[in-house]
């Protein structure tokens, strides 16, 4: 499985396709729109974006995945980490390829999928 939160001894990944993280809203909950690919190489980008969001009393976070092309288990790990930090996670309009990853990992209920 790809690196997840708290994994400090991973190798420097090869440069790969980039991930775009767009901070769309912040009220009532932060909405992050992801574009490109979320894998081990670009997980750092999303982690930095999540770290920079101050969690002052926000209950939950929303990920708009409509424009995301790929996500593997490192993305899953990040979403689970976000759930721990923000209390709950909603995943909006995931493409089929990503929806299947979430469902296969048995997290369709934990990461609430909203179409």
């Amino acid at each position, binding site marked *: 499985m*790809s*690196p*997840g939160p708290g994994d400090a*001894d991973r190798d420097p990944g090869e440069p790969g396709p980039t991930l775009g993280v767009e901070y769309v809203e912040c009220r009532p909950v932060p909405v992050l729109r992801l574009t490109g690919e979320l894998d081990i190489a670009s997980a750092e980008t999303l982690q930095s974006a999540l770290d920079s969001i101050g969690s002052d009393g926000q209950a939950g976070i929303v990920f708009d995945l409509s424009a995301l092309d790929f996500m*593997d288990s490192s993305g899953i790990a990040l979403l*689970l980490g976000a759930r721990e930090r923000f209390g709950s996670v909603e995943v909006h309009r995931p493409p089929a390829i990503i929806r*299947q990853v979430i469902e*296969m990992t048995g997290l369709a*209920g934990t990461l609430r999928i909203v179409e």
Partner: protein
Amino acid sequence: MVDEPNPTVETDPPAPAPVRRRFPWPIGGTGPAVAVIGLVVTGALTWGAWRANDRSTFSLLEGQTRQAAATLSAVVPGIQTDLFDALTVARATNSSTIFDQFATSQSVATKRQFVSVSLWRHSATGTRMIGGIGGPPLLSRRGTAVRFLAGVPSTGTLSVTGILAGSPRRLGYAEAGPGPGTSTYVVYAESALPPPSGLRVPSTSPFATLNYAIYLGSSRQPSDLLAASVPTPIRRVHASVVVPFGDRTITVVATPRVRLAPVESAALPWIALGVGLGLTVIAAAGVEYLAHRRRAAEELSRRLDDLYAEQRTIARTLQHALLPERLPPVPGMDIAARYLPGARGTDVGGDWYDVVPLDGDRFVFIIGDVSGRGVRAAAVMAALRFASRGFALEGHDPGTILGQLARTLDIRTDEHFATVLCGLVDVPGHRVVLANAGHPPPVLRNGDHVAAIPVPPGPPIGVAAPDPVEPVVVSAGPGSVLVAYTDGLVERRGITLDDAVRRLEAAIPRDAASTGDLLDSMLAELMDDALEDDVAVIGLRWLT
């Protein structure tokens, strides 16, 4: 019949390219080479500075000598004036008596310049002295007086004799002018010369800083030496200046007596030498230091390579320790497993598989995938592996095993989670009970029929489960094979999981000599490009 279990667990991770930094340094042994270059350059500069200093010192000497010689030359107009005055008196009065008086009062008494002044008249009949003071001129003793005086032109140039031997020596000067009729008056004066080494020079004179030798004429014969402050001839590097002296010349040869140039200028070669040596030392030391650093960096690079190799060995050892090399034999089954590390081969991964025989007829198999990589993931994996073995040996069904396993891991504190597939196999009964915590579905090939078994996944181990995991029961015909794997085998860009699983189904060969061969064949077909993620796969084949 038990097939020899030979899960050749390939745990050799690919070696990463060693880091080598090449330094663009063409010369070896550079410190001494730089020192030699520095010394050569310093030597050249020092020599150049010394030469320049020398040259400037010499031109200073030349200038001083010229100045000194000029003071001698400057004496001539004064003498000329005196003699011309006397000449004028003689012509005006036509009387030698008045001339004598004049000569006495002017030149001899007051200036003490001449020891003898005489008036001569030169005519067609001869040349004879008609008046004078101070005693007979030395010239007349020599008998050449007439010849000399007859030859004095009336051009206004001072005629000068050679050195007249005597005690003291004398030098004679003559001026001529028209006399009565066609005759010519000649005024002739002699002054005494100090002995050659007896010339006293005032401290303000240009001669004060020089060691000099003054010659009458330009031939520098010892007999022409007028005065010298050092033994002659002067052999050291000297300047020599020739100046007019009446109708003759005077040569002044001089060497410096005191330091002519300022101290700094003379010190320039020493400064160049000192600075050059200093810079050479610094440069050589600097170069040696850089060479040393380069050697240290190369040494470090070598040690890094060694460390990489060591780390790969540790990873391999860990992998061997954590993953069973040999799966326990199970009667009636041919069981094999494969582990392929991903591209990041130095780190150990979190995939594992296990087979736990319960009794002769049943066994539990487990395949799992801990999130992340590295030693921490491996530690979590080891803990889960041994915990799951324990729960399996206690006789629990797969659902319970996973439920209990879920209590041992919490993503909030352990910072890892794991997907796990657990199955309880009844060998003679050809039945499998499967429970799934977030893991990809296993695939069953039963003769011509091959399909993934949809086992509804609960959340991964470590993520709080909202509901207990639902087990699934599957029947496996004789000779069928169940393949379980980790997600590295089905995570691909541009293809959904469903399609990837279907591709996997198609890759399982219908016939194979052994389960090991079956897995190898399947992997060969699926592993088209380089794996990013680790892959673990286990195959359970009913022999009957």
